């Protein structure tokens, strides 16, 4: 009797909860038994290369695609049995543009408000508030086709918020935008989360951006979540320092260093070898001595704390960019491009 309210309370602290959620396209497991919990009020990042299954995962959470297996709850509603309630309680910004170019910003927002049955008396007020939030007040009456990519993105964020969702999904919100616009989009997202307490689920493959924005992240690779936690936690778990050596024969260099017990990990990437060690400043002379002995010419050496990129390499054995070329990923991308079931 006493337990029930407590259980309800715990259930309600979760914005999202999935159990072995899967999506198969014939032989391909686009999403492979993902169990995931996102607490309310967090900015949660799904990180991974293109074709890792991030978009498919999100599509299932927003009820656009039906899961092949497992279950998912969004705001406490089952994505299959209570799709309508899920839809009412979330906002979505898609990876690709989804505005009507021929309508004005205002018309786009009004249309959205009507489709989500925002009370008529509220519409004007909310549209004003949201458009102000994303800094497009001056553009309200202009046709969307005159907007820049960044402005369209901001308008889409405003649109996704008009019906006051509890969760906002953002699929690659900054893809294809210039660095300055990217930074401003992230500022809006952070502001939203802080001021309105909205849970934000986003996907990106910009590791540095995820690092600075997300409270929690999950690394997705080949349809699976291979690591999750706060960015700091993930980086700390890796521990130590990263010594980066730029040199001529980087593969030979990597192989030589790999043998030593104090080298936790050595990975090569574009003529650079990243060596993960404890107390990096003490290891630099040691490393240089070893490399010199092999007659490998070193161009530069740097010492840093592990980044999310290093975390990614650690778990997947590759960098986020290299992964994009793998055949599995290419197939996933093709399926995404079709996106159409007959």
């Amino acid at each position: 009797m006493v337990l029930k309210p407590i259980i309800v309370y715990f259930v309600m602290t979760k914005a999202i909860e999935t159990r072995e959620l899967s999506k198969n396209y014939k032989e391909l497991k686009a999403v492979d038994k993902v169990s995931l919990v996102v607490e309310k009020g967090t900015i949660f990042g799904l990180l991974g290369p293109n074709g890792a299954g991030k978009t498919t995962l999100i599509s299932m959470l927003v009820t656009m695609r039906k899961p092949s297996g497992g279950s998912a709850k969004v705001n406490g509603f089952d994505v299959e049995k209570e799709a309508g309630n899920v839809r009412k309680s979330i906002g979505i910004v898609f990876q690709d543009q989804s505005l009507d170019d021929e309508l004005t910003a205002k018309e786009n927002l009004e249309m959205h408000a009507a489709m989500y049955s925002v009370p008529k008396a509220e519409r004007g007020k909310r549209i004003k508030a949201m458009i102000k939030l994303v800094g497009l007040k001056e553009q309200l009456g202009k046709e969307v086709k005159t907007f820049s990519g960044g402005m369209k993105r901001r308008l889409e964020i405003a649109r996704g918020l008009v019906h006051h969702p509890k969760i906002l999904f953002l699929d690659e919100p900054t893809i294809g935008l210039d660095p300055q616009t990217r930074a401003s989009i992230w500022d809006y997202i952070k502001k939203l989360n802080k001021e309105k307490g909205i849970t934000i689920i986003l996907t990106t493959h910009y590791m540095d951006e995820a690092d600075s924005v997300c409270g929690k992240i999950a690394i997705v690779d080949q349809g699976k979540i291979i690591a999750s936690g706060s960015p700091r936690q993930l980086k700390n778990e890796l521990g130590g320092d990263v010594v980066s050596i730029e040199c001529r024969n980087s593969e030979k260099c990597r192989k030589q260093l790999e043998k030593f017990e104090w080298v936790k990990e050595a990975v090569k990437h574009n003529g650079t070898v990243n060596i993960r060690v404890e107390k990096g400043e003490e290891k630099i002379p040691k490393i240089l001595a070893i490399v010199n002995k092999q007659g490998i010419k070193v161009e530069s050496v740097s010492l840093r704390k592990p980044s999310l990129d290093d975390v990614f390499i650690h778990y997947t054995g590759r960098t986020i960019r290299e992964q994009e070329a793998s055949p599995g990923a290419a197939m996933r991308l093709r399926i995404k491009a079709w996106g159409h079931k007959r």
Partner: protein
Amino acid sequence: MNREIEAIYALWKRELIRFFRAKSRVIGSLGMPFFFLAILGTGLSNAFILPMEGNYLEFITPGIIGMVLMFGSMFSGIVVLMDRQFGFLKETLVAPVSRASIVIGKALGGATTAMFQGIIIMLIAFFLGVNFQIGSVLLLLLFMFMVSVMFVSLGITIASKMEDMHGFQIITNFLIMPLFFLSGALFPLSTAPEILRVASMFDPLTYGVNGLRHILIGYSDIPFTTCFAVISAFTVVFIAIAIWSFNRIEE
């Protein structure tokens, strides 16, 4: 229920805003029917022995109105494909409204703009000297509305099955044009070769054109009650098929 009606209204409004905003589209859509009437209608005036009183222009005016209704509505239906290509379709598909409402909103919007074009053509024909004998304006509007909804639904069905705009040319050349030519819009079916007459019976536009002809100038190759019954049936069936196909779009 209220929610669905609001969504239908919003989608209907969108179709209207889009249609009237693109001035070139409005003018472009009226160009071809205008030339059909003004050039073909007068140029061929002595080429046919008509089974009715009145001139050839009067004979083809209902046919051209039928054509405008079909072209206009088919196009609004096929615009679903453009919505998909430009991403807007996703926004409607994830909204908390039923797919049926989306189809109905689109169909009503497309039908409204098609009817608007049809009425403009009627006015043009009037100024070209066509002597209309409209029995009931209400019946005319209802009939035009049904024909339009039927073809928007056909357009939506086709768009739901197509991947991109590449197939659009095929649809125009191998579906829209034959439907138009077979319908008896340009020549009387009563004097056409047997094979054409039989084929035209399978063309929904035949009933649309003849129904309009009956309402507008009081002549028809087919009894009006038949036209009305067939068009009503086609409209209901086509909209059901459109909803069913639209429901199967997964994204």
